[in-house]
Protein backbone atom coordinates (compact mmCIF):
# COMPACT_ATOMS: atom_id res chain seq x y z
CA UNK A 1 0.00 0.00 0.00
CA UNK A 2 1.29 3.51 -0.84
CA UNK A 3 2.49 5.74 1.98
CA UNK A 4 0.41 8.75 2.95
CA UNK A 5 3.25 10.30 4.97
CA UNK A 6 6.94 10.09 4.10
CA UNK A 7 9.43 11.88 6.33
CA UNK A 8 13.16 11.49 5.70
CA UNK A 9 16.07 12.94 7.71
CA UNK A 10 13.84 15.63 9.19
CA UNK A 11 15.58 18.09 11.45
CA UNK A 12 14.10 21.20 13.02
CA UNK A 13 15.82 23.54 15.47
CA UNK A 14 14.87 26.75 17.24
CA UNK A 15 18.24 28.47 17.56
CA UNK A 16 20.53 25.99 19.29
CA UNK A 17 17.62 23.92 20.56
CA UNK A 18 17.06 20.86 18.37
CA UNK A 19 13.34 19.96 18.45
CA UNK A 20 13.33 17.17 15.86
CA UNK A 21 16.48 15.28 14.98
CA UNK A 22 16.85 12.91 12.03
CA UNK A 23 13.24 11.76 11.99
CA UNK A 24 12.36 9.08 9.42
CA UNK A 25 8.75 7.93 9.16
CA UNK A 26 6.67 6.12 6.57
CA UNK A 27 2.96 5.75 7.29
CA UNK A 28 0.83 3.60 4.98
CA UNK A 29 -2.56 4.86 3.77
CA UNK A 30 -5.56 3.89 5.87
CA UNK A 31 -3.72 3.82 9.20
CA UNK A 32 -4.82 5.31 12.51
CA UNK A 33 -1.59 6.41 14.10
CA UNK A 34 -0.92 7.63 17.61
CA UNK A 35 1.87 10.16 17.99
CA UNK A 36 2.89 9.81 21.61
CA UNK A 37 5.37 11.53 23.82
CA UNK A 38 5.70 13.81 26.82
CA UNK A 39 5.07 17.56 26.59
CA UNK A 40 7.73 19.43 24.65
CA UNK A 41 9.05 16.36 22.84
CA UNK A 42 8.37 17.78 19.35
CA UNK A 43 4.94 16.28 18.57
CA UNK A 44 3.26 19.59 17.74
CA UNK A 45 6.27 20.75 15.71
CA UNK A 46 6.07 17.59 13.58
CA UNK A 47 2.31 18.06 13.05
CA UNK A 48 2.74 21.74 12.16
CA UNK A 49 5.37 20.79 9.57
CA UNK A 50 2.95 18.28 8.06
CA UNK A 51 0.17 20.91 8.04
CA UNK A 52 2.42 23.45 6.29
CA UNK A 53 2.63 25.87 9.22
CA UNK A 54 6.38 25.46 9.77
CA UNK A 55 8.55 25.80 6.71
CA UNK A 56 12.18 26.24 7.74
CA UNK A 57 13.22 22.66 8.40
CA UNK A 58 15.84 20.34 6.95
CA UNK A 59 15.03 17.03 5.28
CA UNK A 60 12.18 15.77 3.14
CA UNK A 61 8.52 15.76 4.09
CA UNK A 62 5.88 14.45 1.70
CA UNK A 63 2.19 13.74 1.94
CA UNK A 64 0.69 11.47 -0.70
CA UNK A 65 4.05 11.77 -2.45
CA UNK A 66 3.78 15.57 -2.80
CA UNK A 67 6.00 18.06 -0.99
CA UNK A 68 4.09 20.22 1.50
CA UNK A 69 2.15 22.89 -0.40
CA UNK A 70 -1.23 23.68 -1.92
CA UNK A 71 -1.74 20.07 -3.12
CA UNK A 72 -1.16 18.60 0.35
CA UNK A 73 -3.30 21.25 2.06
CA UNK A 74 -6.18 20.18 -0.19
CA UNK A 75 -6.09 16.66 1.24
CA UNK A 76 -5.07 17.31 4.86
CA UNK A 77 -7.58 18.24 7.56
CA UNK A 78 -5.68 19.74 10.48
CA UNK A 79 -6.99 20.25 14.00
CA UNK A 80 -4.68 22.41 16.15
CA UNK A 81 -4.48 21.99 19.92
CA UNK A 82 -6.63 25.07 20.62
CA UNK A 83 -9.44 26.98 18.92
CA UNK A 84 -8.24 29.15 16.07
CA UNK A 85 -11.50 30.46 14.65
CA UNK A 86 -12.06 34.24 14.76
CA UNK A 87 -14.32 35.24 17.66
CA UNK A 88 -16.72 37.23 15.46
CA UNK A 89 -17.62 34.15 13.41
CA UNK A 90 -20.69 32.05 14.10
CA UNK A 91 -20.73 28.30 13.39
CA UNK A 92 -22.68 29.04 10.19
CA UNK A 93 -19.92 31.46 9.07
CA UNK A 94 -17.21 28.91 9.81
CA UNK A 95 -19.12 26.24 7.88
CA UNK A 96 -19.51 28.57 4.90
CA UNK A 97 -15.80 29.36 5.07
CA UNK A 98 -14.82 25.69 4.99
CA UNK A 99 -17.38 24.92 2.27
CA UNK A 100 -15.89 27.68 0.11
CA UNK A 101 -12.28 26.58 0.41
CA UNK A 102 -12.43 22.79 0.71
CA UNK A 103 -14.02 20.82 -2.12
CA UNK A 104 -14.27 17.78 0.17
CA UNK A 105 -16.28 19.59 2.86
CA UNK A 106 -19.76 18.22 3.59
CA UNK A 107 -21.82 21.28 4.54
CA UNK A 108 -25.06 19.40 5.27
CA UNK A 109 -23.26 16.99 7.58
CA UNK A 110 -21.59 19.90 9.40
CA UNK A 111 -24.91 21.65 10.03
CA UNK A 112 -26.39 18.37 11.22
CA UNK A 113 -23.48 17.78 13.60
CA UNK A 114 -23.65 21.34 14.96
CA UNK A 115 -27.29 20.70 15.89
CA UNK A 116 -26.47 17.17 17.09
CA UNK A 117 -23.90 18.54 19.53
CA UNK A 118 -26.34 21.19 20.79
CA UNK A 119 -24.29 24.08 19.45
CA UNK A 120 -26.20 27.20 18.50
CA UNK A 121 -25.40 27.82 14.83
CA UNK A 122 -26.02 31.55 15.31
CA UNK A 123 -23.94 32.02 18.46
CA UNK A 124 -20.72 34.00 18.11
CA UNK A 125 -17.69 31.81 18.71
CA UNK A 126 -16.19 34.25 21.24
CA UNK A 127 -19.22 33.70 23.50
CA UNK A 128 -18.91 29.89 23.38
CA UNK A 129 -17.21 27.86 26.10
CA UNK A 130 -13.79 26.34 25.41
CA UNK A 131 -15.37 22.90 25.08
CA UNK A 132 -17.99 24.17 22.59
CA UNK A 133 -15.28 25.85 20.51
CA UNK A 134 -13.22 22.65 20.45
CA UNK A 135 -16.26 20.63 19.38
CA UNK A 136 -16.94 23.07 16.56
CA UNK A 137 -13.32 22.87 15.36
CA UNK A 138 -13.51 19.08 15.43
CA UNK A 139 -16.81 19.11 13.49
CA UNK A 140 -15.24 21.29 10.79
CA UNK A 141 -12.31 18.92 10.44
CA UNK A 142 -14.34 15.73 10.48
CA UNK A 143 -16.83 17.00 7.91
CA UNK A 144 -14.08 16.96 5.33
CA UNK A 145 -13.49 13.81 3.32
CA UNK A 146 -9.76 14.33 3.68
CA UNK A 147 -7.08 11.77 2.86
CA UNK A 148 -5.22 12.58 6.05
CA UNK A 149 -6.57 13.91 9.35
CA UNK A 150 -3.98 15.44 11.65
CA UNK A 151 -5.37 15.94 15.14
CA UNK A 152 -3.21 17.67 17.73
CA UNK A 153 -4.32 16.78 21.26
CA UNK A 154 -8.02 16.50 20.38
CA UNK A 155 -8.80 15.34 23.93
CA UNK A 156 -6.57 17.81 25.74
CA UNK A 157 -9.15 20.13 27.30
CA UNK A 158 -11.91 17.57 27.87
CA UNK A 159 -13.15 15.81 30.98
CA UNK A 160 -12.97 11.97 30.99
CA UNK A 161 -16.63 11.45 30.03
CA UNK A 162 -16.37 13.85 27.08
CA UNK A 163 -13.17 12.19 25.88
CA UNK A 164 -14.97 8.93 25.06
CA UNK A 165 -17.71 10.86 23.22
CA UNK A 166 -15.17 12.82 21.19
CA UNK A 167 -13.19 9.68 20.36
CA UNK A 168 -16.38 8.03 19.14
CA UNK A 169 -17.11 11.17 17.12
CA UNK A 170 -13.68 10.91 15.49
CA UNK A 171 -13.92 7.20 14.78
CA UNK A 172 -17.49 7.36 13.47
CA UNK A 173 -16.95 10.33 11.21
CA UNK A 174 -13.59 10.26 9.54
CA UNK A 175 -13.61 9.05 5.94
CA UNK A 176 -12.89 5.33 6.17
CA UNK A 177 -10.25 5.06 3.45
CA UNK A 178 -8.34 7.92 5.04
CA UNK A 179 -5.49 8.01 7.53
CA UNK A 180 -5.54 9.63 10.96
CA UNK A 181 -2.57 10.93 12.91
CA UNK A 182 -3.46 11.78 16.51
CA UNK A 183 -1.06 13.36 18.94
CA UNK A 184 -1.86 12.81 22.59
CA UNK A 185 -0.43 12.07 25.98
CA UNK A 186 -3.71 10.54 27.21
CA UNK A 187 -2.81 7.07 25.98
CA UNK A 188 -5.28 5.15 28.10
CA UNK A 189 -8.21 6.81 26.39
CA UNK A 190 -7.07 6.35 22.83
CA UNK A 191 -4.96 3.23 22.57
CA UNK A 192 -7.96 1.14 21.50
CA UNK A 193 -8.21 3.02 18.21
CA UNK A 194 -4.58 2.94 17.06
CA UNK A 195 -3.17 0.67 14.36
CA UNK A 196 0.30 2.06 14.79
CA UNK A 197 2.16 4.18 17.35
CA UNK A 198 5.04 6.61 17.06
CA UNK A 199 6.85 7.61 20.25
CA UNK A 200 9.03 10.69 20.27
CA UNK A 201 11.36 11.83 23.01
CA UNK A 202 13.85 14.68 22.95
CA UNK A 203 13.23 15.17 19.24
CA UNK A 204 14.06 11.57 18.36
CA UNK A 205 11.74 8.85 17.17
CA UNK A 206 12.13 5.99 19.63
CA UNK A 207 9.25 3.73 18.59
CA UNK A 208 7.57 3.29 15.21
CA UNK A 209 5.55 0.09 15.36
CA UNK A 210 2.29 -1.58 14.58
CA UNK A 211 0.21 -1.96 17.74
CA UNK A 212 0.08 -5.75 17.28
CA UNK A 213 3.88 -5.84 17.38
CA UNK A 214 3.87 -3.98 20.66
CA UNK A 215 1.18 -6.17 22.14
CA UNK A 216 2.99 -9.40 21.26
CA UNK A 217 4.38 -9.48 24.77
CA UNK A 218 0.99 -8.96 26.34
CA UNK A 219 1.55 -5.31 27.13
CA UNK A 220 -0.72 -2.37 26.48
CA UNK A 221 0.47 0.73 24.62
CA UNK A 222 0.36 2.55 27.95
CA UNK A 223 2.74 0.02 29.50
CA UNK A 224 5.14 0.25 26.56
CA UNK A 225 4.95 4.04 26.83
CA UNK A 226 5.94 3.85 30.50
CA UNK A 227 8.88 1.64 29.60
CA UNK A 228 10.05 4.07 26.91
CA UNK A 229 9.49 7.17 29.04
CA UNK A 230 10.08 5.95 32.60
CA UNK A 231 10.65 9.37 34.15
CA UNK A 232 8.00 11.50 32.51
CA UNK A 233 5.11 10.73 34.88
Amino acid at each position, binding site marked *: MADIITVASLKKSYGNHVVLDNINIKIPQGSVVGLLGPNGCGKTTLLKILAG*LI*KDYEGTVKINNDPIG*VETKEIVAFL*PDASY*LPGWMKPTDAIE*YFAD*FYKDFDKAKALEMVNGFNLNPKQKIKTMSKGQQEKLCLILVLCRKAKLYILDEPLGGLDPSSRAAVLDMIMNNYAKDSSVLISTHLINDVERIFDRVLMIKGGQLLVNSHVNELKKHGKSVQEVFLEVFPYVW
Partner: protein
Amino acid sequence: MFGKLLKHELRHTARYHFSIILVSVIATIFMGVSLVMESEALMSMAMLPLILVAAAVIIVSLVSIIKNFYETIFSRQGYLTMTLPVKGSQLLISKVLISFFWIIVSYIAAFLPFVFVLIHLKKQLDADNMTDQLVQEITSYLPSTGSIVLIVIFFVVTSLISILSYVSYVYFSVTIANTRLLNKHPKLFGGLIFLGVSILTDKISDFTLNIAPLSFAIGEEKAFFTFKDVWELEGVIINTFDVNSYIIEAVVAVVLLLATGYFIENKINIK
Protein backbone atom coordinates in the same frame (compact mmCIF):
# COMPACT_ATOMS: atom_id res chain seq x y z
CA MET B 1 -10.42 30.34 -5.26
CA PHE B 2 -9.07 33.91 -5.51
CA GLY B 3 -12.63 35.26 -5.61
CA LYS B 4 -13.42 33.37 -2.42
CA LEU B 5 -10.33 34.79 -0.75
CA LEU B 6 -11.50 38.29 -1.68
CA LYS B 7 -15.01 37.56 -0.42
CA HIS B 8 -13.86 36.30 2.97
CA GLU B 9 -11.19 38.97 3.34
CA LEU B 10 -13.81 41.65 2.70
CA ARG B 11 -16.18 40.02 5.15
CA HIS B 12 -13.49 39.63 7.79
CA THR B 13 -12.27 43.23 7.53
CA ALA B 14 -15.70 44.85 7.24
CA ARG B 15 -16.27 44.66 10.99
CA TYR B 16 -13.17 46.83 11.64
CA HIS B 17 -14.30 49.54 9.25
CA PHE B 18 -18.07 49.42 9.47
CA SER B 19 -18.53 51.18 12.84
CA ILE B 20 -16.21 54.07 12.08
CA ILE B 21 -17.76 54.58 8.65
CA LEU B 22 -21.17 54.55 10.36
CA VAL B 23 -19.96 57.39 12.62
CA SER B 24 -18.94 59.31 9.51
CA VAL B 25 -22.36 58.76 7.92
CA ILE B 26 -24.06 60.00 11.11
CA ALA B 27 -21.81 63.08 11.06
CA THR B 28 -22.78 63.66 7.42
CA ILE B 29 -26.47 63.42 8.28
CA PHE B 30 -25.95 65.81 11.20
CA MET B 31 -24.22 68.26 8.88
CA GLY B 32 -26.97 67.85 6.28
CA VAL B 33 -29.68 68.55 8.86
CA SER B 34 -27.87 71.65 10.14
CA LEU B 35 -27.61 72.95 6.57
CA VAL B 36 -31.26 72.23 5.75
CA MET B 37 -32.29 73.97 8.95
CA GLU B 38 -29.90 76.78 8.01
CA SER B 39 -28.66 76.80 11.56
CA GLU B 40 -25.30 78.59 11.67
CA ALA B 41 -24.85 77.65 15.35
CA LEU B 42 -25.50 73.97 14.66
CA MET B 43 -23.14 74.05 11.71
CA SER B 44 -20.35 75.68 13.69
CA MET B 45 -20.89 73.09 16.41
CA ALA B 46 -20.67 70.28 13.85
CA MET B 47 -17.45 71.44 12.21
CA LEU B 48 -14.98 70.37 14.91
CA PRO B 49 -16.49 66.89 15.43
CA LEU B 50 -16.52 66.53 11.64
CA ILE B 51 -12.81 67.22 11.39
CA LEU B 52 -12.16 64.81 14.28
CA VAL B 53 -14.35 62.12 12.69
CA ALA B 54 -12.55 62.56 9.36
CA ALA B 55 -9.17 62.12 11.04
CA ALA B 56 -10.44 59.15 13.10
CA VAL B 57 -11.89 57.39 10.04
CA ILE B 58 -8.54 57.50 8.26
CA ILE B 59 -6.44 56.60 11.32
CA VAL B 60 -8.71 53.69 12.31
CA SER B 61 -8.63 52.42 8.75
CA LEU B 62 -4.82 52.51 8.58
CA VAL B 63 -4.41 50.88 12.01
CA SER B 64 -7.00 48.20 11.17
CA ILE B 65 -4.94 47.14 8.17
CA ILE B 66 -1.97 46.44 10.45
CA LYS B 67 -4.14 44.64 13.03
CA ASN B 68 -5.95 42.49 10.48
CA PHE B 69 -2.76 41.44 8.71
CA TYR B 70 -1.08 40.45 11.98
CA GLU B 71 -4.11 38.58 13.34
CA THR B 72 -4.94 36.56 10.26
CA ILE B 73 -1.39 35.46 9.47
CA PHE B 74 0.67 35.44 12.65
CA SER B 75 -1.76 34.87 15.56
CA ARG B 76 -3.87 31.75 16.23
CA GLN B 77 -6.05 32.63 13.24
CA GLY B 78 -2.99 31.90 11.13
CA TYR B 79 -3.83 28.20 11.64
CA LEU B 80 -6.99 28.82 9.64
CA THR B 81 -5.47 31.10 7.00
CA MET B 82 -2.18 29.31 6.43
CA THR B 83 -3.69 25.83 6.06
CA LEU B 84 -5.98 26.94 3.23
CA PRO B 85 -5.19 25.29 -0.11
CA VAL B 86 -4.13 28.58 -1.73
CA LYS B 87 -0.79 30.02 -2.76
CA GLY B 88 0.84 32.56 -0.45
CA SER B 89 0.90 35.06 -3.32
CA GLN B 90 -2.90 34.76 -3.81
CA LEU B 91 -3.41 35.33 -0.10
CA LEU B 92 -1.18 38.40 -0.13
CA ILE B 93 -2.74 39.92 -3.27
CA SER B 94 -6.26 39.46 -1.85
CA LYS B 95 -5.18 41.26 1.33
CA VAL B 96 -3.54 44.09 -0.63
CA LEU B 97 -6.62 44.63 -2.80
CA ILE B 98 -9.03 44.67 0.13
CA SER B 99 -6.77 47.01 2.11
CA PHE B 100 -6.74 49.28 -0.96
CA PHE B 101 -10.51 49.16 -1.08
CA TRP B 102 -10.92 50.08 2.60
CA ILE B 103 -8.43 52.94 2.46
CA ILE B 104 -10.30 54.44 -0.51
CA VAL B 105 -13.67 53.91 1.22
CA SER B 106 -12.35 55.50 4.42
CA TYR B 107 -11.08 58.55 2.51
CA ILE B 108 -14.48 58.93 0.85
CA ALA B 109 -16.21 58.49 4.22
CA ALA B 110 -13.90 61.04 5.81
CA PHE B 111 -14.53 63.69 3.19
CA LEU B 112 -18.22 63.00 2.56
CA PRO B 113 -19.47 65.40 5.27
CA PHE B 114 -17.44 68.22 3.75
CA VAL B 115 -19.29 67.79 0.46
CA PHE B 116 -22.33 69.14 2.26
CA VAL B 117 -20.32 72.12 3.40
CA LEU B 118 -19.34 72.79 -0.23
CA ILE B 119 -22.94 72.41 -1.40
CA HIS B 120 -23.98 74.88 1.27
CA LEU B 121 -21.27 77.32 0.25
CA LYS B 122 -22.37 77.03 -3.37
CA LYS B 123 -25.94 77.79 -2.32
CA GLN B 124 -24.79 80.90 -0.53
CA LEU B 125 -22.70 81.98 -3.50
CA ASP B 126 -25.64 81.35 -5.81
CA ALA B 127 -27.78 83.55 -3.61
CA ASP B 128 -25.19 86.29 -3.86
CA ASN B 129 -24.79 85.68 -7.64
CA MET B 130 -21.11 84.99 -7.04
CA THR B 131 -20.86 81.44 -8.40
CA ASP B 132 -20.07 82.40 -11.98
CA GLN B 133 -17.55 84.94 -10.80
CA LEU B 134 -15.83 82.38 -8.55
CA VAL B 135 -15.79 79.67 -11.23
CA GLN B 136 -14.22 82.15 -13.63
CA GLU B 137 -11.67 83.10 -11.01
CA ILE B 138 -10.69 79.46 -10.35
CA THR B 139 -10.59 78.37 -14.00
CA SER B 140 -8.41 81.34 -14.87
CA TYR B 141 -5.65 79.64 -12.85
CA LEU B 142 -6.08 76.30 -14.63
CA PRO B 143 -4.61 75.23 -17.97
CA SER B 144 -6.55 73.73 -20.91
CA THR B 145 -9.07 70.87 -20.59
CA GLY B 146 -6.54 68.31 -21.90
CA SER B 147 -4.10 69.36 -19.22
CA ILE B 148 -6.77 69.16 -16.53
CA VAL B 149 -7.35 65.51 -17.51
CA LEU B 150 -3.59 64.92 -17.19
CA ILE B 151 -3.56 66.60 -13.78
CA VAL B 152 -6.44 64.42 -12.58
CA ILE B 153 -4.72 61.26 -13.86
CA PHE B 154 -1.49 62.35 -12.17
CA PHE B 155 -3.18 62.85 -8.81
CA VAL B 156 -5.17 59.60 -9.04
CA VAL B 157 -2.06 57.57 -9.94
CA THR B 158 0.10 59.18 -7.24
CA SER B 159 -2.64 58.65 -4.64
CA LEU B 160 -2.84 54.97 -5.59
CA ILE B 161 0.96 54.70 -5.36
CA SER B 162 0.87 56.25 -1.89
CA ILE B 163 -1.76 53.74 -0.74
CA LEU B 164 0.16 50.81 -2.25
CA SER B 165 3.30 52.11 -0.63
CA TYR B 166 1.68 52.29 2.84
CA VAL B 167 0.19 48.79 2.53
CA SER B 168 3.47 47.26 1.33
CA TYR B 169 5.51 48.95 4.11
CA VAL B 170 3.04 47.66 6.71
CA TYR B 171 2.93 44.10 5.36
CA PHE B 172 6.69 43.89 5.00
CA SER B 173 7.38 45.36 8.47
CA VAL B 174 4.86 43.09 10.20
CA THR B 175 6.17 40.02 8.36
CA ILE B 176 9.86 40.64 9.08
CA ALA B 177 9.06 41.52 12.70
CA ASN B 178 7.43 38.09 13.04
CA THR B 179 10.39 36.08 11.77
CA ARG B 180 12.09 33.94 14.41
CA LEU B 181 14.93 36.41 14.87
CA LEU B 182 12.70 39.35 15.81
CA ASN B 183 9.40 37.91 16.99
CA LYS B 184 10.08 38.45 20.70
CA HIS B 185 9.34 42.17 20.24
CA PRO B 186 7.29 42.32 17.03
CA LYS B 187 5.73 45.75 17.70
CA LEU B 188 9.08 47.41 18.39
CA PHE B 189 10.82 45.81 15.42
CA GLY B 190 7.81 46.32 13.17
CA GLY B 191 7.87 50.06 13.93
CA LEU B 192 11.63 50.28 13.42
CA ILE B 193 11.49 48.41 10.11
CA PHE B 194 8.64 50.65 8.88
CA LEU B 195 10.70 53.72 9.80
CA GLY B 196 13.87 52.27 8.28
CA VAL B 197 12.19 51.40 4.97
CA SER B 198 10.61 54.90 4.79
CA ILE B 199 13.98 56.60 5.38
CA LEU B 200 15.72 54.34 2.88
CA THR B 201 13.07 55.06 0.22
CA ASP B 202 13.51 58.80 0.81
CA LYS B 203 17.29 58.49 0.47
CA ILE B 204 16.95 56.55 -2.81
CA SER B 205 14.51 59.21 -4.12
CA ASP B 206 16.98 61.97 -3.20
CA PHE B 207 19.75 60.09 -4.96
CA THR B 208 17.73 59.69 -8.18
CA LEU B 209 16.70 63.36 -7.99
CA ASN B 210 20.35 64.34 -8.34
CA ILE B 211 20.73 62.12 -11.41
CA ALA B 212 17.48 62.74 -13.30
CA PRO B 213 15.05 65.08 -11.54
CA LEU B 214 11.71 64.35 -13.22
CA SER B 215 8.92 66.78 -12.26
CA PHE B 216 5.29 67.27 -13.10
CA ALA B 217 4.69 70.96 -13.69
CA ILE B 218 1.33 72.70 -13.76
CA GLY B 219 1.62 75.90 -15.70
CA GLU B 220 -0.89 78.56 -16.66
CA GLU B 221 -0.91 77.23 -20.23
CA LYS B 222 -0.50 73.50 -19.75
CA ALA B 223 0.55 70.64 -17.45
CA PHE B 224 3.60 68.62 -18.45
CA PHE B 225 6.47 66.35 -17.33
CA THR B 226 9.96 67.82 -17.42
CA PHE B 227 13.55 67.15 -16.37
CA LYS B 228 14.26 70.89 -16.14
CA ASP B 229 14.45 72.85 -12.90
CA VAL B 230 11.50 75.13 -12.15
CA TRP B 231 13.46 78.34 -12.86
CA GLU B 232 14.44 77.01 -16.29
CA LEU B 233 10.79 76.62 -17.35
CA GLU B 234 9.09 79.09 -19.64
CA GLY B 235 5.79 80.78 -18.80
CA VAL B 236 3.99 81.02 -15.47
CA ILE B 237 4.33 77.84 -13.38
CA ILE B 238 1.69 77.35 -10.71
CA ASN B 239 3.26 74.32 -9.03
CA THR B 240 5.68 71.44 -9.61
CA PHE B 241 5.63 67.94 -8.12
CA ASP B 242 8.57 65.58 -7.68
CA VAL B 243 7.85 62.48 -9.78
CA ASN B 244 11.00 60.56 -8.79
CA SER B 245 9.73 59.90 -5.28
CA TYR B 246 6.51 58.34 -6.63
CA ILE B 247 8.39 56.12 -9.08
CA ILE B 248 10.78 54.98 -6.33
CA GLU B 249 7.85 54.44 -3.94
CA ALA B 250 6.10 52.26 -6.53
CA VAL B 251 9.24 50.22 -7.23
CA VAL B 252 10.00 49.80 -3.51
CA ALA B 253 6.36 48.79 -2.87
CA VAL B 254 6.52 46.04 -5.51
CA VAL B 255 9.88 44.79 -4.18
CA LEU B 256 8.55 44.77 -0.60
CA LEU B 257 5.41 42.86 -1.59
CA LEU B 258 7.49 40.26 -3.45
CA ALA B 259 9.75 39.94 -0.41
CA THR B 260 6.73 39.65 1.90
CA GLY B 261 5.30 36.90 -0.32
CA TYR B 262 8.63 35.05 -0.22
CA PHE B 263 8.86 35.26 3.57
CA ILE B 264 5.26 34.14 4.08
CA GLU B 265 5.73 31.24 1.69
CA ASN B 266 9.12 30.09 2.98
CA LYS B 267 10.24 31.57 6.27
CA ILE B 268 7.33 32.27 8.56
CA ASN B 269 6.43 29.76 11.25
CA ILE B 270 3.03 30.09 12.85
CA LYS B 271 3.48 30.16 16.64
